C-alpha cells in the first residue's frame, strides 16, 4: 500500500469505502442494522443507493435477532455485516454472538463456516454515558471462537474491514468512538490488512508501549514528549487485532527494551491490557527489567459529566507518566542470579 501521494480520508469514510468495495466484489455480502440506510455513524452511508434494500437491511431494534439472523445467513451462504451501533448493545445480542456465532464452528466439528462481521462502537462518544460507552473487546477476547479487531487509523480501518468481511470466521469489529472524525492517508483502491499482524506505529529502543485503538494516539503523543524531554526512545506497537493477537511482535520489542507499558480504554480488571501483560510476563520474564505498567480505565461505569468522563480515559499525560515510571525503574533486583544486564 505504498503510494506517491497519499490521499487523506476520514476514519468512518474509510470504513464506508471498505464496505462499498466488498459489497461490489461479492454479492453475498449484506449489511444489516438499525438505520443503516441513513447511517448515524456514517459507516454504511450511501450503500442503500448502490445496493438496494435487499442487501442493505434496515432492522427493527432487535439486537439479538439481527445477530442471530446473521448466524443463519452466514451458515447458508451469505456474508452478513451487522452494525450493532454501540458496544453497549452487544450485551443485548450476547447469546447469539457468543453462544451461537462463536460456537458453531467448533460445535459442528468444522462443518459450519460463520463469515460474520459484528460492527460496534468502542468506548464513549462525548457524554454518551454508562449505557452507550462500553468497550467490551476484552469480553469478546474471552469468548473464544470470534476474532476481535480494534483499528487505530483510517487506513487500518479500511484494510482490516476488508479482511474481516472476507474472513471465514465471526469477527467483532470495533470502531473507537474517539477516532470517527480523525483523518489519515488511505489508499483509494481496495486492500486487505491481514488479521493478526501488529503494526509498529513508532520505532524505539528504551520502552515498549502497546496501545489499543484510540490510545495509540495518546501513546504517540506521549512518546514524542518523552523523546523531547529526556531522549527516551519509545516504541509504540498497535496490535490492531486482539484475536488473533500478534504476541510475537510485542515480545520482539520487549526483548530489546525490557520495559513495557500497555494502554487500553477498556476497564482494567480482566481487561485486554491485563491479558497482554500476563502473556509477556509468562513468555518473556527474563527480558523484563522492571514490572510492566498498565494504563487503562478504572473499574467504573462511564460517567455522564464531561470532566468525570475525561478523568477515566487514557490520555497522553497518563501514558507519559507510565513511560517515565518504567523508564526510571531500576533493573529488577529480585532475581540477582539473572541480573545480567
Amino acid at each position, binding site marked *: 500500500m505504498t503510494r506517491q501521494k497519499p490521499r487523506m480520508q476520514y476514519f468512518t469514510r474509510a470504513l464506508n469505502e471498505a464496505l462499498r468495495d466488498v459489497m461490489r466484489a461479492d454479492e453475498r455480502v*449484506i449489511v444489516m442494522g438499525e438505520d443503516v440506510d441513513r447511517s448515524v455513524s456514517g459507516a454504511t452511508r450511501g450503500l442503500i443507493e448502490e445496493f438496494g434494500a*435487499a*442487501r442493505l*437491511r434496515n*432492522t*427493527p431494534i*432487535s439486537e*439479538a*435477532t*439481527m*445477530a*442471530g*439472523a*446473521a*448466524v*443463519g*445467513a*452466514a*451458515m*447458508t*451462504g*451469505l456474508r*452478513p455485516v451487522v452494525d450493532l451501533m454501540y458496544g453497549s448493545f452487544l450485551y443485548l445480542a450476547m*447469546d*447469539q454472538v457468543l*453462544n*451461537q456465532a462463536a*460456537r*458453531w*464452528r*467448533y*460445535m*459442528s*466439528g*468444522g*462443518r*459450519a*463456516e460463520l463469515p460474520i462481521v459484528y460492527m460496534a462502537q468502542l468506548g464513549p462518544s462525548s457524554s454518551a454515558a454508562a449505557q452507550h460507552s462500553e468497550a467490551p473487546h476484552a469480553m469478546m477476547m474471552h469468548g*473464544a*471462537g470470534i*476474532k476481535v479487531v480494534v483499528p487505530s487509523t483510517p487506513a487500518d480501518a479500511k484494510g482490516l474491514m476488508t479482511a474481516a468481511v472476507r*474472513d*471465514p*470466521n465471526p469477527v467483532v469489529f470495533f470502531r473507537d468512538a474517539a477516532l470517527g472524525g480523525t483523518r489519515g492517508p488511505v489508499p483509494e483502491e481496495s486492500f486487505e490488512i491481514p*488479521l*493478526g499482524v501488529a503494526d509498529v506505529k513508532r520505532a524505539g529502543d528504551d520502552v515498549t508501549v502497546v496501545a489499543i485503538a484510540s490510545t495509540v494516539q495518546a501513546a504517540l503523543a506521549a512518546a514524542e514528549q518523552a523523546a523531547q524531554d529526556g531522549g527516551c526512545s519509545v516504541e509504540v506497537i498497535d496490535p490492531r487485532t486482539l*484475536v*488473533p493477537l500478534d504476541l510475537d511482535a510485542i515480545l520482539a520489542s520487549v526483548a530489546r527494551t525490557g520495559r513495557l507499558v500497555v494502554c487500553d480504554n477498556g476497564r482494567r480488571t480482566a481487561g485486554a491490557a491485563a491479558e497482554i501483560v500476563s502473556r509477556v510476563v509468562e513468555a518473556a520474564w527474563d527480558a523484563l527489567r522492571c514490572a510492566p505498567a498498565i494504563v487503562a480505565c478504572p473499574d467504573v461505569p462511564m460517567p455522564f459529566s464531561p470532566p468525570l468522563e475525561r478523568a477515566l480515559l487514557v490520555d497522553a499525560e497518563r501514558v507519559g507518566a507510565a513511560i517515565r515510571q518504567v523508564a526510571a525503574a531500576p533493573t529488577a533486583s529480585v532475581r540477582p542470579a539473572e541480573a545480567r544486564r
Partner: protein
Amino acid sequence: MDLNRAPTDDLAALRRMLLVRAFEERLAELSKQQLLPGFVHLSIGQEAVAVGACGSLAASDRITSTHRGHGHALAKGCEPGPMFAELMGREGGYCRGRGGSMHLLSLEHGVLGTNGIVGGGIPIAVGSALTSAVMGDGGVTIAFFGDGAANEGVLSESLNMAAIWRLPVVFVCENNGFAEWSATDELTAGRIVDRGTPFGVPSTRVDGNDLRAVQDVVGGACERARGGDGPSLVEAVTYRTHGHLIGEEAFTSPYRTDDEVAAWRERDPIALFAAQLVAAGQMGDATLGELRAEVEAELDSALAWAQASPLPDPDEAELGVLVEGVA
C-alpha cells in the same frame, strides 16, 4: 395442499416416525448403560410434529431445532449412524463428537443445528430464510421451538422481523405441556398460537399427535412461504411421554400424574396414524410390525457402526475453534 398423497409417502412417514421412536428408545437404553455422556432429551410422543412438518420440505430446505431435536434431524433426513456416533462423542458423528445431542448440525441435510439455548435457533432460522430471500433460491426454513421458547424475547423479535421482510420461514412450536418441569399453563399467559396475531402472521393450532393434520397445516404454511407471502406460526399441541431428560427421576419430584401420561399414550401419534392407514386400506395389519422390525435392524447396524467409530484424540481438543485455527 396435496391431500392425495401416494400410499408410499404415507408408509415412508410412518416408517420415519418409527425410526425416531426406536432411535430414542435405544438412547434410553444406552443411557442406562452409561454409554451416553451429557444431557439427553427424548422426543418420544412428539414424532408426528417432526415427521409431519419435515414432510413438506425438500432436501434443500432447512430447519433449526431445539435441545429435543433428534426427531427433527432424523425427520429431515439425517442418518441414525452418524447421529448415534455424535451422541456418543465419537469422530463418526455429524459434528465429530464436538457438538453432541444439543449441538448437532448437518448442513448437507439442511439441519442448522439442534440448540442448547432455548429459543436460540429461532433467529438463526430467520437468517436462513433471509438467505433464501436475498438469493431467491425458493427455499423454506422451519424454526422448531418448544413452548418454553415462546417466552423468550427472540420469538417476538423474530416474528416481527420475518413479517416485515416477508421471509419464507415457518415457526413451528411443539407445545408439549412442560417447560423443563413446570407446566406451561402456569408460565405462559394466553395461547402461544395467538402470539403471531399481533404481527399479522397467520397462526394455526393443530393436534400435534395427528400426523395428517400437521402435514396439512405446515404444508400450507410452507406453500405460503414459497409463494412469497411470508411467515406463519403453527402451534402443535403434543406431549413428551418421557419427561424432560433421561434420569430426571433422580432429582425432580413427580410433576405430572400417571393418569395424564397414560391418557397421552392412548393418543400415541404412531398408533393413531397406523390405525388410519389400516382403516383406509393402505396397509395390512402386519405392516406396522414389519416396518418396526426393519427399523430395528437398521438401528442395529447404525449403532454397531457408531460404536466402531473412534473417540476423538485428546490432542485435538484445542483445534477447530476458528477456521484455519487461532493464529
